């Protein structure tokens, strides 16, 4: 006898503004509460301490924003999916906004399994745009890029060049506009609010070799510094970081777990790809 079919929803949401400082784990708790507020009939695990059956995709680092976050939730009965996105957004704090909710096909693979890469917009501070651009060019030309990092308590050196699927300088920028608005009065550059830097667009693999945005800046910093530099990190600092896409690539065709809604189809029922 086959197990009863599971009803699963996939939710696409954005994270921006002050709430970017809230951790992945806390975002999960915010969703659990929002789902109770909107009476979404979430399925619970069995056992001594039943837990709601939520499963998030790739964690987003504290401080990073995203246009494309996802989570799957199992429900015990099908809710009104069309109104669910707007209702959840209302129940979530400012800065977390649900863009669409779709019904997952039976047996659909988990987010963790299917995401092959992510596209990021990364602000790099602390060095002029031309030296950042030179480091980008050097990175793309390099046959290998060795990075020492600690994973699970062990230090290991890996070649992370294969993780960089695409990398380009999107341009210099003149400040850091925030959701709360750029301060009217000029604040000193450096650690102040108005900063000048370079924006990168990069696609990083999530498969065999993975690389985080902050690790990419570390790699670029070393290249910018050169071998005789006084500052081994080239003075590069991480500014605003925003995930713009998560990709599923199958047989060379790239798609998103839930496509971005445009204005006319926002909050409509769509099938997951």
């Amino acid at each position: 006898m086959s197990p009863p079919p599971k009803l699963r929803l996939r939710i696409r949401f954005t994270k921006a503004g002050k709430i970017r400082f809230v951790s992945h784990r806390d975002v999960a708790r915010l969703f659990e509460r929002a789902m109770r507020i909107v009476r979404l009939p979430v399925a619970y695990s069995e056992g001594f301490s039943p837990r709601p059956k939520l499963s998030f995709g790739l964690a987003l680092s504290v401080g990073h924003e995203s246009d494309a976050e996802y989570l799957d939730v199992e429900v015990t009965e099908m809710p009104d999916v069309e109104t669910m996105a707007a209702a959840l957004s209302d129940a979530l704090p400012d800065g977390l906004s649900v863009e669409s909710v779709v019904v997952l096909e039976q047996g659909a693979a988990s987010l963790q399994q299917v995401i092959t890469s992510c596209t990021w917009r990364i602000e790099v501070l602390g060095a002029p745009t031309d030296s950042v651009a030179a480091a980008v060019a050097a990175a793309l030309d390099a046959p290998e890029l060795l990075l020492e990092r600690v994973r699970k308590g062990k230090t290991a050196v890996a070649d992370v060049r294969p993780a960089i699927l695409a990398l380009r300088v999107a341009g210099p920028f003149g400040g850091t506009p925030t959701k709360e608005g750029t301060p009217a009065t000029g604040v000193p550059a450096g650690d102040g609010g108005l900063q000048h830097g370079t924006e990168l667009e990069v696609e990083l693999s999530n498969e065999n070799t993975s690389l985080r945005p902050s690790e990419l800046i570390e790699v670029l910093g070393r290249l910018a510094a050169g071998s005789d530099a006084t500052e081994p990190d080239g003075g590069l600092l991480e500014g605003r970081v925003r995930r713009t896409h998560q990709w599923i690539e199958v047989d060379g065709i790239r798609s998103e777990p839930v496509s971005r809604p445009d204005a006319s189809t926002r909050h409509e029922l769509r099938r997951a790809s």
Partner: protein
Amino acid sequence: MTSVWPLLEPLLPRVQKPARYIGCEDGAKAKFPDPGLVSWCFTYPDTYEVGLPNQGLQILYEIVNERLDARADRSYAPWVDLEELMRQERIPLFSVEHHTPAGEFDAIAFNLSAELTYTNLLNCIDLAGLPIHSADRTERDSLIMVGGHCTYNPEPLADFVDVVVLGDGEEVVGEITEVMVRHLAPTADRPTTKFADRRALLVELAQLESVYVPSLYEMTYDGPKVASVEPLVDGLPTLIEKRTVADLADWPYPKEQLVPLTEVVHDRLNVEVFRGCTRGCRFCQAGMITRPVRERPADQVRTMVGEGLRRTGYDEVTLTSLSTADFSNVEDVVTDLINDGDDAGCGPVSVSLPSLRVDAFGVGIAAQLQRAKRGGLTFAPEAGTWRMRQIINKLIREEDLYQAVDAAFSQGWKRVKLYFLIGLPSETDEDTLGIAELAKNCVAIGKKHNNRASVTVSVGGFVPKPFTPFQWFGQNTAEELQRKVNLLRDATRKMRGVQLKWHDPRATLAEGIASRGDRRIGPVIEQVWRNGGVFQEWSEHFDIERWTTAMADHGLRVEDFVYRHRTEGEVLPWDHLWAGLHKDFLWQDWQDALAEVGLEDCRWTPCYDCGACTGYGIEHVVASATPPAGGSQGTGQDLTTGGAVPVTVLPSRHGPAPENRNENRIGEHAEASA
């Protein structure tokens, strides 16, 4: 009004848990900062995770923001990593709503729940950019106010705070606001200049009931003892009385409990079901200073819980009080709440009851609590032998504990936590070792139900507190407490299933210095702070050397302030304050303790005239005139009810309301927060 946000934002990626500095909680009020309003910054002098859930501050925050003449923000002590960056970048302490510098508020009002936060209070004043000494502050500076349980001996902080509020804050916060309104500087000068005449403001505040302005009183000494405390200004009271709100039903706060974006302690809905406690545990300051018992009507509890769960999305509610199992008909109330949650169809709702008394914990409550997600279970027998429990008046029998533990394990719990005090009056090693014996027997009971049953024993050193029968008792030395810990450690080492945890006896000593000190302790606290002693409740930041060195540097002996037994006729540093309890009642209770005589709960037995009810014309407000399961303090004695018992019985949910419910209510006597 200015905002530090543009300066703060670039620092946040560099600190731990930045979410605690962004505000944005559901329930936060960001009232427009009109300079015509009196502005309050309610501040907890410890981390956001510890301070945000503080119900006293949340209640006052809502009450002030509901007023037309005032507004309130909140602030918390930044963790040391952010503090270092703030000092480098010259960013002051800020509120989390508008990120306004704390020094721009008319009043920075602190909740003081623990003595070890005193150095953080100084640090917050300093981070706000204000002189730490009250005497050095001017019309340009915020008023520093304190409330909460520690203010029943505010003298160690007398040099640093401007205004002390005793007791329930719900009513007096409005009265203070109204006085401040009359003293505000002209709008054009604000917020740079806050008040027209700071001293005139303080003198007027000092005339409000329950408000104490230490700078307007002088303390004199007689060797290690206090000789007198006298007002320096004509017309000020010589005895400052606490506030007590007569009826919690009038104060259904917080109406919109704050829901933080990041996990905090007590991260669930909290609904206060009663205030005050008359169990009479002699070590317990909270139980003494919050008398009489005032229950919230059960239907109001049900409404607050239902609305709170719907609004917040929490799936867990704690019914808070000093002894929730004593709430009238508590089993029915809990059953209703859980059924309400099932009916609402938003998943299982769990109800937790803190401060469970073992004599009231049966299979019935255990079964109710385990219907939803189960949390931990903590029982507090407090002492290891019946003799010791008679002395502290926690009259629970061993059998009561065993049946409670049996109920818990039988309903599926695998671990229970037991809380004990060591260093109690006349304690012998036999009493101390009794703790290990109880733990061993509890594990044996657990094994009948589950082979992996275990018991965590948590041991804290006793610190005598003001306005308790033990206020005269000389605290155990840190060395003596450590010896007792070692006894227990050795005794439990080979007990399978028993895990021992203990509070650092050196921290207990520091708490003792602050809890019964007088104004001479102020410079000690200041020196500890100046030498880097912040976050003293956090073991990684605590160092007893800072405290003992500071005592010695100021010519003060730990012996005099901590270890010395006080004498009957001695002036205590808090004798000019009034918590509602007659000093001779407390002294008699102290003598009874030494004679190993217990005292029954006065809710269900005749009045002992402690002063809490009669002095205020307030009565216990309870819904049931019969005691809960477990009898009177578990002694098994028959109870006489009625007669001289001063109990106002609340109307039952279905019955008619007695017309005289508020007959004895006195308007000005308001309730206590913190």
